[in-house]
Structure formats: structure tokens, C-alpha cells
């Protein structure tokens, strides 16, 4: 496993480029994706599967939105806030989106410092990412509370089609769960980084496999995916 943990080895430079390279990799033995470790391959395939889950959720939302005969609530009004006497539509969602996308930036920097084996900076950036994620979830909690106070329920709301509440709680709830799981993993991995687990290749609790700094990157893959999903939810649910 030792060499597979590295993203680039001397081997890769000698490989054929383009489609012929892909064909050569797939027809070679042992591994279809050269220099991709088991953990990273597994995360990519899981994300593919998860993509189908979120796609099904979003398509179902669009279908119910089209099938209902009652008007859909005006999202820019529903998600508006009064700040300092000014009525600003979508302000909270805009801030949430900004926070989550910023967290992708700190995550990418954490991956970089991880491969440089800078334990303190890596852990600090991962914790910053986790903090952004926690902020996002808290703001979502605020948003949920506000809507619930205004009378929005999964089975109905004061402004129009009851599917609005159903889809809102289901989709943002499922995404929020993903963010929460991500925050927990970020904190757990940051702790391992700080403790130096990956310098001594200590075995993981769940996988019983040796740990490497690549795990920071794998966590990052998940995190970027959750951010990307949010962009689609933002576009299709809030802006439409």
C-alpha cells in the first residue's frame, strides 16, 4: 500500500497519454486506475452512487412542483430577511452559500499542506473547514426554525403548495446531514493529523488499514462533493 498512497510516482510519467492510455490502463493487470489507492477509488464510487441519490431527490422535487395544481410559494420572499430595516431577499442563503464555498477553499489548502506533511497547518485548516461547515449547519438550523415559526410544515404551509415544505425539509435535511457527517469526519481526521498518526502509519479504527496523509484528500473529495451538491440545490430549489 505504501506507494499507492502517493499521488504521483515515477511510473506515471512513462504512461501513454489520451484515450490509448486509458485503454492501456484498463487492459493492464492488478489495477484499472493506476496510482489510485483503494480508499480513494472507493470514495469516488461512493460519490457516484450518492450523486444518483441527490439527482433522484432533485428530479422528484421538480416533478412534484410540476404536478401540483396549487401555486408554488415565492422563494425570494420566503427566504428574505429584514436586516436593519431593509428587506433583503435570499440574504441568508447567499451567506450560507458563501460560507460553504469558502470551506472548499480551506479544504483544498489542507490537502496541500497534508502532502507537505505540515501537521499543524493541515489540522488548523481542516478545523477551519469544519467550523465553516458547522456555521453552515447552524444557519440552516436558524432557517428551519424561522420557517417553522412562520407555520411551514412538511405537510403544509401558509403560502401555497404543500410540497414546498415537504421538499424543503427533505432535501435541505438530507444535505445538512451530509454536511454534519462531513464535519464529524473532518474533526476526527484533524485529530489524527495533529497526533501524527499518518507519520507513523497508524492503523485506522474502521478500516484496520494503515493511515496516510491521503486520507485528508479523501475527506476533501467528500467535502467538495457536498459543496457541489449545494450549488445544485441552491440553483434548483432557491433560485428557481
Amino acid at each position: 500500500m505504501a506507494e499507492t498512497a502517493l499521488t504521483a510516482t515515477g511510473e506515471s510519467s512513462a504512461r501513454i497519454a489520451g484515450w490509448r492510455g486509458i485503454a492501456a490502463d484498463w487492459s493492464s493487470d492488478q489495477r484499472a486506475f493506476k496510482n489510485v489507492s483503494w480508499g480513494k477509488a472507493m470514495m469516488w464510487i461512493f460519490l457516484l452512487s450518492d450523486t444518483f441519490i441527490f439527482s433522484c431527490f432533485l428530479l422528484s422535487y421538480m416533478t412534484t412542483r410540476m404536478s401540483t395544481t396549487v401555486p408554488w410559494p415565492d422563494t425570494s420572499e420566503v427566504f428574505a430577511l429584514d436586516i436593519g430595516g431593509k428587506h433583503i431577499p435570499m440574504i441568508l442563503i447567499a451567506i450560507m452559500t458563501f460560507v460553504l464555498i469558502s470551506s472548499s477553499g480551506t479544504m483544498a489548502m489542507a490537502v496541500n499542506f497534508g502532502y507537505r506533511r505540515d501537521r499543524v497547518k493541515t489540522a488548523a485548516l481542516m478545523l477551519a473547514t469544519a467550523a465553516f461547515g458547522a456555521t453552515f449547519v447552524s444557519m440552516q438550523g436558524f432557517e428551519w426554525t424561522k420557517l417553522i415559526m412562520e407555520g411551514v410544515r412538511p405537510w403544509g404551509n401558509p403560502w401555497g403548495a404543500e410540497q414546498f415544505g415537504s421538499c424543503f425539509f427533505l432535501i435541505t435535511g438530507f444535505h445538512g446531514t451530509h454536511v454534519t457527517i462531513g464535519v464529524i469526519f473532518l474533526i476526527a481526521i484533524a485529530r489524527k493529523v495533529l497526533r501524527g498518526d499518518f507519520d507513523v502509519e497508524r492503523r485506522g479504527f474502521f478500516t484496520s488499514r494503515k493511515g496516510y496523509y491521503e486520507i485528508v484528500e479523501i475527506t476533501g473529495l467528500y467535502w467538495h462533493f457536498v459543496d457541489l451538491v449545494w450549488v445544485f440545490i441552491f440553483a434548483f430549489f432557491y433560485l428557481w
Partner: protein
Amino acid sequence: MVDIPYEAIADVPPAEVPDVELYHPKSWVTKYVFSQDAKVIAVQYALTASAIGLVALVLSWMMRLQLGFPGTFSFIDPNQYLQFITMHGMIMVIFLLTALFLGGFGNYLIPLMVGARDMVFPYVNMLSYWVYLLAVLVLGSSFFAPGGPTGAGWTLYPPQAILSGTPGGRDWGIILMLVSLILFIIGFTMGGLNYVVTVLQARTRGMTLMRLPLTVWGIFTATIMALLAFPALFVASVMMLFDRALGTSFFMPTLIEMGSLSKYGGGSPLLFQHLFWFFGHPEVYIVALPAFGIVSDLISTHARKNIFGYRMMVWAIVAIGALSFVVWAHHMYVSGMYPYFGFFFATTTLIIAIPTAIKVYNWVLTLWRGDIHLTVPMLFALGFIITFVNGGLTGLFLGNVVVDVPLSATMFVVAHFHMVMGVAPILVVLGAIYHWYPKVTGRMLNEVLGKFHFWVTFLGAYMIFFPMHYLGLLGIPRRYYALGDAAFIPPSAHTLNAFISVVALTVGVAQMVFLFNLVWSLFRGKPSGGNPWRATTLEWQTPETPPGHGNWGKDLPVVYRWAYDYSVPGAKEDFIPQNQPPVPRGAHGAGP
């Protein structure tokens, strides 16, 4: 010159991945209960799936008792009948076949066949089984819940699935069913990721993808399909659970229930059907592709002949897997969907016949002039080909919009899907158990009992399902508790129903012979040795039988050739194992 195919003498590249250290169990519990060894997990999966499958078998007897002799058995009321058909269908399709092929055969055969020590992440693999067991327990608990299990039909169509007129609709039944499905999908995903990554990234030296036995190709492709199809069922289950438990209306239109306007409104029942069948059609091939793969290996091994058209077989598996994602609405021709969609889906459905036919021809051509040994696994493999062709042809009927509309929801449909994804894959499961039992236990299954089991099962299954086509053409509907005195149903149809029921019970009893054989042979069976079928694939070349922890002893095997070197001219034996090195170039001179 004659004996070694080109690929066999290709140089074997050096190892790219150092050998892994495994988790070593320290106690009986971590060795046999909370085991991280794929082989133990496979047996756990297989036993659990078989146990819940037996429940489904008993449910089918109850249904046949009612259909064959309506009114005779007072302990079956209409509600129970609906619960029986629902649970029978769901258990057989998901909790038996999917779990057995992927969790059972996948776990056992993938690491052994690709030359790995275990799955890539054994701990996650172990969790997969325990979540699956939890799903089975939740499902089983619905038999004891107030109101009993759901009777919505295995397709669980809303709105009826969660209304008070359906058994379990306003009780616990439907909730437990949906929770069980959600758990199953979570558990399967953990296992499925392992199977896919093991095949892609953890093969031994020399094992290219195009040297994999077709069994691995079938299970691998089916697992990828499952990882992409189960999300739709997951989403549908979560949304229906919301509709039932929270009162949302994802799938529920405005309707009158028991004389009063229900609180639901504005949802789309058709959306559920699309989600369900986006999962449901690939599910057919999730069950069929492992069967295709396994049967290819059975036929090749027991006909002592290389598989005909190996590359075409692989590409046919991949093509069927891809096409199966664009045919789902052929289950919905009568759903009220926009009619012209039907013609698109009919076209894609009929295109699937091409790769499928390629596979059938290749199986037959593998048999052609082979050295056919009519062993028990071979009998089951031959039975599969016949049953599958039969069920596939009626699939062409049902795939056409104009033919499907009158046949929809009749016994013809029941006959079709039982032939093609019930009997056919089960025959492969049974054949595969006879084939690999010696590797799992070190003992052969009794052959006389096996042949008896085969003939009763195969002929019996035909006698059960073949007449059902005729009943369907008469227009007899499926899922009906009793047929009543409808004028279009001749008295002979009732006689035929009684006949089917008697045969079904007989076939059911024959399965007890099989169970006896499994237990008896475990202690008294003939010791099999490491490679009783003289097969080429890696799982038969393990240093120990049953294979030990880590599968391969000290050194991983090195693969030099494809999996089908049977009856190679000039070779000493009629098979050459995949890990047998080629004869050095100079040694050819003395050949024939």
C-alpha cells in the same frame, strides 16, 4: 506452438501493490460471528438469505393453496393473501436473490477468483452483513406487528400502499417494509463498494480484466448497476415513509378515502412508479447478470471446453447492464404515462434482446461438440438456458406496447417474470451451490439426491409456470384472491390452477431434500479434494480446502492465462489452471 494461446506467454508485470496485512481474529467470536473474512461473511449472507427465502417459499405455498382450492382453507383471508404475495415478491427479489448473488457468491468468489487475500476493506464488509441482517429482522418483525405486514404488492404503488384499504397501509406493515428497504440499501452499499474496488484495484499479478472469469464480470457489473439503481429505491422509500409517517404528499393526489376527503393532495403517484422502476428494471439484471456469469463458468467447466466468444460475453454483460437503465418505463405502459414514451421504451427494450441472444448462442456454441459431463451443476446450467430462453421470449411479447396492454396484470406476466428472473436465476443458484459446495466445505454434495432435486425442481417449475401463460392469455388477472364466477373463465382454468398448486407443493417439498443434502453432506459427504471438477479458475488452486484465512498461504498466485484453458490440444491434462506457468519456449520441440 499449438498449445499456448498468445496471451499466456505475455510477461507478467511486477507487483504494483505490496501484499496487505490482514486483521487476524483472536477469538471464536471474531472468527465466526463478527468476522472480517469475506468467506465467513459470504456464508453468513447465504444462510441469512436462504432462511428468509424459506419464509418466502412457505408464503408461496399459502398462495397456491388459496388459488388452487379457493375457499377450502379458512385460515387464509383476502387480506392475508395480499400480504403473502407482497412479502413473497419482495423477499425473493431483494432479500434472497440480490443478497445471495452479490453478498453470498460475490463475497466468496470475488477475492478468490481475482487472487486477493480479502475484500479491500474487510471491516466495512462485515458491517454490510450486519446491517443486512438488521434489515431482514425488521422485515421479519412485520409479520408480528399489529395489522401484519404490508399487502400493497411488491411494487408498493401509492396511493393504495399507504391507505387504510390496504393491509398494513395505516398500521406498521408499510413502515417496517420501507425502513427495511432503506437499511438493506445502506448495508448493500457498504458491501457493493468493496466488491467493485476489489475487482478494479486488488487483482493479483497477471490478472487483467480480460482474464477474469465471467462469474466475476457478472457480479462486478451487477454490483455497479446496484450502486446506481438502489439510490432511486432509497429516495422512493424515504419519500413514501414521509408520506405515511409525516403526512407529506410526494406521491399522494387529492383523493377520497373511506368516504371522506383525505388530507393528502397534489402529489404524483406516477413519480413513484418512475423511481421504483428506475430501480426495478436494473434489479432484474442485477439478479440475472451474476447468473449469466456463473452459468458461463459452469458450462465451460463441465463441458470441458473454453467459453465461446469470451470477449463478446464480457461486452454483452456490460451492454446489458448499460441498456437496462433506459428501459424502465416498459413496466408502465398502462400507467397513464404519455403514450408515445411507450414506443421509445419498447425500442430500447427490444434492443436488449441482441446482447442477450449473443449470450445464449455463445452458451450453446460452448456446449457444441464439448465433452459434456452431466454432473448436477451442469444439469442446472442446462436447465437455466432452457428456462431463460423461454422467459426471454415472453419478454419480447411484453416489451411491445400493443401486446403488453391486454396482457398487463394477468397471469402471463407472472409466468414471464417467474421464468426469467425467478426460476432461471434460482436454477443457477442451486447449480452454483452444487459446484462450489466442495470448495466451501471440503465435501461433495450427494449426487443421487442432487439429480433427484434437479429433475423435480426443473420439471416441476415448468409444470407450474408454463400453464400460467395460458391462464394469462385467457385474461385471468394476477393478485386476485378468488376468481369468482366470471363467464370468460372456463372450468378447466380452475382445474389447471389446482394442478399448478399440487405441483408447487411437490417442488417445495423437494427443496427439503436439498436442505437435507446440504446438512448430511457437511458431515458424511465424500471428501472432495482441492479441485474436484478439474477447473481452471483460481479459487480451485488454493493451498487449503476450504481456503484458509488470507486465502493463499504465503505467496499470492500469479496468473499466466485466461480462465478457460480446457481441452487444450497437446496439454497433459484437459485443463490448465490460470496460475500454471507456460512451458518454456525451448520445450516445445517434443510436442505432437
